[in-house]
């Protein structure tokens, strides 16, 4: 096995490493690089290629976290938070959030959970289970139908989004 490994290494990497101390042929032509250094450079180059494929060069390399225009999260958060004070004052039963942004590739459960739990933690932790109201995120194409069919009591315009509050009479 040992002999086989040595042979495999000689035939695959023999250009750089000679098991019997003969001068590797390529080394004569590449005086600047030792066999080990060449392999190390190749591995480092692989790493660079790998990370370069992941970086999105169409975006700012040092993005701003507060005002990134590409970031739909900030739009969603800003729009919902502007309605939060009003929502906290009201004893509401159901809230529909009609985001302005197209929430592609995300299902409604994800968004509902996201808005309920993440954007209104004060509602979640300061009240009992009774004060927890559900938030449903509505896809833009269903907004008109919802407004026609739902006996809403308040529509808050928030940025480009709308928050529809349903309160039982």
């Amino acid at each position, binding site marked *: 096995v040992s002999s086989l490994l040595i042979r495999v*290494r000689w035939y695959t990497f023999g250009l750089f490493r000679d098991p019997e101390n003969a001068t590797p042929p390529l080394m004569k032509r590449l005086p600047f690089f030792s066999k*080990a250094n060449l392999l190390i450079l190749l591995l480092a180059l692989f790493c660079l290629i790998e990370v370069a494929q992941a970086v999105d060069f169409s975006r700012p390399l040092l*993005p701003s976290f507060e005002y990134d225009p590409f970031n739909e999260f900030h739009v969603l958060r800003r729009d919902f938070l502007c309605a939060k004070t009003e929502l906290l004052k009201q004893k509401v039963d159901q809230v529909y959030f009609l985001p302005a942004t197209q929430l592609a590739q995300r299902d409604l459960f994800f968004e509902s959970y996201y808005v309920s739990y993440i954007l209104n933690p004060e509602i979640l932790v300061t009240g009992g289970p009774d004060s927890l109201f559900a938030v449903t995120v509505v896809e833009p194409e269903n907004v008109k139908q919802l407004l026609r069919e739902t006996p809403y009591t308040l529509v808050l315009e928030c940025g480009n989004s709308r928050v529809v509050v349903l309160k039982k009479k």
Partner: protein
Amino acid sequence: VQLITSLGLFFLSFALGLLLVQLVWRLATERFPSWMLSVFLGAGVGAGVSSVLFTGDLFLRDATPVAPPTFLWVEAGLLLALLAGWVFLRRRGTPAPASSGGPVRLQPLFLLLCAAGFAGALIFFLQSSALRPVGDWDGWTLWDLHAKFLAFGGAGWKKIFTEPLHPDYPLLTSGFIARAWAVLGRDQTLVPIYTAALFLFGSIGLLMAVLKELRGWQTALLGGLILACSTGYTRLGADQYADVPVGFYFLAALGLLLLHDLRFPEKSLLFLLVGLCAGFALWTKNEGWLMLAALVFVRVSFQLRSRSFRKALPEWGFFLAGLAPLLLITLYYRSLAPANDMTAAPWKSLAQLADLSRYATVWNNLNQYLVALGKWKSGSVLFLLALFGLGMGLRLPAAERAPLALAGLTILVLVGEYFLTYILTPRDLLWHLQTSLDRLLMQFFPALLALIFLSIHLEPEKS
């Protein structure tokens, strides 16, 4: 003001960890550790200490601390005590840390590639964090959400146990985030982002520090570069998953064991840090229990077999001293929390042990995910490293074989434990494998890289 406060809290925790590592290391080895080891190990240890002080305060008073926050006074007092100890030891005169590599001549082209690779990883992290400031699914549904209960829940923080997704999960990352949010009075997005950066770049730096101590700069840079450029790992960190922090503590415990065995075999006090890091892994994720079991099982088995267990008793004493506070807080929290979903149907789980098809399914998935470890687009990083090792040759001096074999066995036992967990899981097996196996493998990826690079012949050229 909020930004300065937030960063101030970060640096308070960092200074705590830095001084703690420096002091324990100095007391154990009579030298201060290298700056690299102090900084990167200290960052993680500091985060763990701050998180424990915050959650400990919360548990003791059963409410989120109000001004003045007690835990901050405790942190400040601890910092002053550590600083006094550090100044005292510094004045007594200490030899400089031993340099393992000596003056090294590295190729400018290699350094350039490394600089570009590390910069690329940093940019990728920043871009990912800007796209998803609250992280991905686990980031916001678990760790950030738990932090909100802890920071803003007041006396009602225990409503965390009514949370629908995994209320029993340990609280190290959530506690560290909540500590800052409680002081700031709001859920500043920067805090989970810098927590993610701390553990991600801390893992890369810690891997480099261990390799630098035991081999030299060339090995350290190449090992760190591989981890930094594994974009699956960087993405997992930016997505604020706790698999990266738990992997940090596993690497820290295993790396410290290797440093003890290969550099300071007589310095038992280092086990205090090993115990502390194993304990922090417990307090980060439930997988920490499996890591602790693997570390202890492999080492004790070896010591019993070589009849050196009695001689190693002081080591285990220090290990327990480091582990005990974290063990206590984890057990206390577990006593309050609902049972873990994995134990929902114990009889069904046991019956699954006899189902051979499950073994085949787990085995196939394990192989598939191991080949894709690190999620390299250009191919399998493990295959690439195997080729690289074949080309460079292995370096396993006789004196190093046993410690390296023990580290390798620890990782192997951990994989075995994960394997068994999937056999026993009461959840749908395929769903469970597809949603978690790649993350579990990432937990020991940095430690595996440390082991691989310690075994490859990568001698630096000395000038």
